[in-house]
């Protein structure tokens, strides 16, 4: 076999291996989706979305969990976006001189992104629930999830900022702009699609988190809607977790239906990310 034929063979083999790797993921995803849809699709109805949980599976709904999830996501976005982007901008745009402290901060942020979520739950329990006595409220839940996704937002913000050509900044400075003007008017708009994508992907990770919220003591049975951020709450993953562990078959069906709703919510979040990316990308013309 000559060299060329060998290389082509390797090439074809690599292509097949990559294809197989892709298929493995897809097969599992489709099996899961099909199984869930098969079990739960028939259960989804308007009354399922607008009823409170109940001891009778056929009467139970996800209203409080759905509203809780939307509240938590909204609050988490409000807290995490400015702090995460702010930290990312500072580290990327304002600390050009690498010294020991900035390195230390960078390493720590990278490490924090890998810390198991339950640890954040314990942190939230210690700080927000007990030390600040915010109790088991929406605010506590959102702040805990904010801590959880901050490292991801900071890292993706920095990556997005890094991708902006340095010549843009130099051109801006050359015209007499300050650092703030350069960052705000030139760099951030270009980096925004990347930052938003990172933020929304981080949020769609947070939407499925159960462990930290159970740790801070989010509740299992709630049959009312929160009126302020200081009210107790429950979220979809916790409702699903509770239903799955019940003896009645009807609750397993409810859990499957609630999983579909959660998947749809995640899908909506991800579609927003894609939409925003396209929208902002088109505007930039250098």
């Amino acid at each position, binding site marked *: 076999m000559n060299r060329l034929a060998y290389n082509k063979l390797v090439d074809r083999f690599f292509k097949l291996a990559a294809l197989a790797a892709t298929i493995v993921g897809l097969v599992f995803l489709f099996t899961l989706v099909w199984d869930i849809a098969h079990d739960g699709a028939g259960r989804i109805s308007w009354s399922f979305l607008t009823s409170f949980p109940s*001891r009778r599976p056929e009467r139970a709904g996800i209203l409080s969990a759905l509203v809780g999830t939307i509240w938590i996501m909204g609050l988490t976005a409000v807290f995490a976006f400015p702090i995460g982007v702010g930290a990312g901008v500072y580290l990327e745009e304002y600390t050009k001189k690498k010294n020991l402290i900035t390195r230390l901060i960078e390493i720590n942020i990278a490490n924090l992104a890998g810390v198991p979520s339950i640890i954040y739950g314990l942190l939230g329990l210690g700080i927000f629930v007990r030390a600040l006595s915010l109790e088991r409220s929406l605010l506590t839940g959102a702040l805990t999830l904010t801590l959880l996704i901050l490292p991801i937002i900071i890292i993706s913000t920095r990556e997005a900022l890094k991708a902006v050509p340095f010549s843009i900044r130099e051109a801006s400075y050359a015209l007499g702009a300050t650092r703030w003007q350069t960052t705000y008017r030139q760099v951030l708009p270009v980096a925004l699609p990347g930052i938003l994508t990172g933020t929304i992907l981080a949020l769609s990770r947070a939407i499925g988190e159960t462990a930290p919220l159970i740790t801070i*003591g989010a509740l299992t049975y709630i*049959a009312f809607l929160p009126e302020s951020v200081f009210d107790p709450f429950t979220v979809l993953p916790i409702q699903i977790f509770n239903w799955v562990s*019940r003896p009645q078959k009807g609750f397993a069906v409810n859990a499957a239906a609630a999983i579909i709703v959660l998947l749809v919510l995640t899908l909506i979040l991800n579609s927003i990310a894609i939409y925003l990316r396209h929208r902002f990308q088109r505007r930039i013309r250098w």
Partner: protein
Amino acid sequence: MDRTRTRTPKAVWVILAFVVATIAGVGTEYAHAARRLVKIDGSSTVFPITEAVAEEFQIEKRGRVMVTVGISGTGGGFKKFCRGEVDIVDASRPVKSVEAALCRKNGIEYIELPVAYDGIAVMVNPQNNWVDHLTVKELKKMWEPAAQGRITKWSQIRRGWPEREIHLFGPGVDSGTFDYFTKAIVGKSGASRGDFTASEDDNVLVQGIATDPDALGFFGLAYYEHNRDKLKLVPIDDGNDSNGKGPILPSAETVNKGTYQPLSRPVFIYVSKEAASRPEVDEFVSFYLENAGTLSAEVGYIPLPEDIYKRALRKFKKRKTGSVFGGKGAKMGVTIHDLVRH
């Protein structure tokens, strides 16, 4: 050195300041603002009953009172209860001395109220044709700590049983069910072999026993009721003929009459005396004791006799605090009448 270095985006500081102010300033104020709220946490075994009561109570109150129910296990529930973080704790076993001490330290007095019976069912796979009943002694032989790695075959339990491996399934060691089972069978709460399949999720245990012909396991009767077709219930002989002769199957009747021994037990709620002075908590607990009979049966538990609920209600109204178990946790031989003495 950059000349522009010191310029930090103002907006970032404004937002940061806003967030900090929200957390620190307003937080503590509003967190304690009185919304008519009854907070409950604790055992997953008692949860379905409390959930049912909370559901009916809130329907009757038309949203004027809100009830939250969490699941942190009996132990976790007492931890929160004794810190004053919840008003009521769901308990599938009586309060332990360490918990009682913690409550005392924090000045939390409690009223102990039985709300239903829970039978612990012992089950095997339906294909298992050799087990017709089990004695407490045989169960002890299987589950005691000394059995670890030693008792591995059915033939070691009773002569004539097959030379097949025995696979044991049970609830997690943090559950009240596990505490009670070990106390009743082995004699010491929490004393058990470690080499069995443990799960906090009873449906996992149902699956395990239903698919393994060599399996034996135990969990709350309510889970058996909903999986009758997949499991075979084992009658238990406690060797004491005064409370029913021979092996006895758990059922509403045998649990209620006290013949299904030693694996049936009352489950409780503990109400904070201080919280009970709030009208919503007082109303909720009264509603609980008035409706626990019907509602516990509906969710698969065995109701206490009607007059026990009446006496429990009187005990609650008199705010009789403390535990008849003397803070010893799971304990045998306490009758249901002792529980409601006031």
